[in-house]
């Protein structure tokens, strides 16, 4: 039987009376996987993560982290789960030392040596009060804590927001090392380059709905942009291609963007006898944008005058 790092079933969240933040989400993250959660602003990524961490409650549905049900009120289930939110909420009046003192007492597998090494490597001023720290320093502190608890699952909400590129890269390396040692990593991001390097599985959520979850390699292997010229204009059949994301026209040339079933679709297009045909690679970024647009998330603005 497959072990899941995160297993989410029929999860919904409704704020107030009718603001649906999450709508019937089903998601399964295999153990040891690096899982990227994508979605436009306000799609419900942070809400989902906060529900997983027990900060807010789902309206319906269930979820389990490392096989432990999140509805269990006990805190033990989070003892080897690291969480770095987008915005850090440490006690402003505390010294960095106090924050670490609390963590050291509350996490059973706290790695003092590792923490010390990291504090030194990332120049964290431990005699400072939290309110004196910059945003970046607070985020560093959160990452250092996350790595020091020897996590089996790491949940990151927009990792790197507020960090400079060098520091961010360093932390990502450390997380990849954790992943290589068997920890599951679940992160939400807008940075698709980062996601392409690090994730093996991705999921896209939009307006609270899960569009799909799949292996990144498979997604990329099945997605292409096909440029073709047809003697008698665009055949009707093109519109019925499975996984079609978009058709663009530039003069005689049609750009057919496919998000799935590349080989099958290629044969079908060939059968339509195009005058000219070429296959282009498509970046994850484009793929994401096309997928969003297909789902009606569009902010196309006419040229500004």
């Amino acid at each position, binding site marked *: 039987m497959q072990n899941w790092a995160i297993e989410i079933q029929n999860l919904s969240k409704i704020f107030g009376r009718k603001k649906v933040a999450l709508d019937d989400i089903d998601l399964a993250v295999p153990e040891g996987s*690096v899982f990227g959660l994508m979605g436009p602003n306000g799609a419900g990524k942070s809400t989902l993560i906060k529900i997983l961490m027990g900060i807010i409650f789902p309206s319906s549905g269930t979820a389990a982290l490392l096989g432990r049900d999140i509805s269990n009120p006990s805190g033990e289930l989070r003892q080897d789960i690291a969480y770095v939110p987008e915005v850090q909420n440490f006690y402003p009046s505390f010294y960095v030392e106090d924050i670490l003192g609390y963590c050291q007492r509350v996490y059973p597998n706290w790695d003092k040596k590792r923490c010390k090494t990291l504090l030194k490597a990332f120049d964290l001023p431990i005699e400072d009060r939290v309110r004196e720290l910059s945003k970046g320093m607070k985020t560093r502190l959160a990452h250092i804590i996350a790595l020091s608890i020897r996590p089996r699952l790491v949940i990151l909400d927009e990792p790197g927001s507020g960090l400079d590129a060098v520091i961010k890269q360093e932390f*990502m390396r450390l997380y*990849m*090392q954790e992943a*290589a040692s068997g920890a599951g990593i679940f992160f939400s991001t807008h940075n698709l*380059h980062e996601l392409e*390097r*690090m*994730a093996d599985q991705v999921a896209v959520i939009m307006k609270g709905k899960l569009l799909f979850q799949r292996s990144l390699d498979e997604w990329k292997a099945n997605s292409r942009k096909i440029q073709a010229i047809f003697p008698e204009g665009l055949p009707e059949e093109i519109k019925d291609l499975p996984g079609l994301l978009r058709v663009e026209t530039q003069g005689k040339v049609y750009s057919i963007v496919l998000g799935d079933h590349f080989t099958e679709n290629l044969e079908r297009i060939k059968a339509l006898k195009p005058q000219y045909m070429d296959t282009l690679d498509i970046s994850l*970024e484009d793929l994401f944008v096309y997928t969003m647009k297909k789902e009606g998330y569009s902010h196309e603005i006419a040229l500004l005058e």
Partner: protein
Amino acid sequence: MWFDVDPRSSVAIYRQLVDGVKEAVARGILETGEKLPSVRELAAQVTINPNTIAKAYQELEREGIIETLRGRGTFVAAHKPQKNLEEKEKAIKSMLEKIMVEAYYLQLDEKTLLALMEKTVQNWYRNREGV
């Protein structure tokens, strides 16, 4: 370097790694018996998903380009993959055909193309010996 990857390419990252190692071995940048970094080390070094790296290493091992010695690490294999001539020819031929298409559109004639190929092949072998 052989482990540089371009995540934007539609070529899967593990494929890029496999090709990178193969090229480095063919060019003599990686020598027989040389130790490769472990999956953990490489993952941390290049910030790439460790599962992807493990997949690439598995593929390379299957093709006989590297070998893993239990407890000691991963090394560039001593024996190059032995395929029969027919298979080798088939593999090269399909790639050559792609080049032919490009050459056709660039309007290179047969003679120029052959000369270019000969020169490239000669240079390549000379460079490799020089390494």
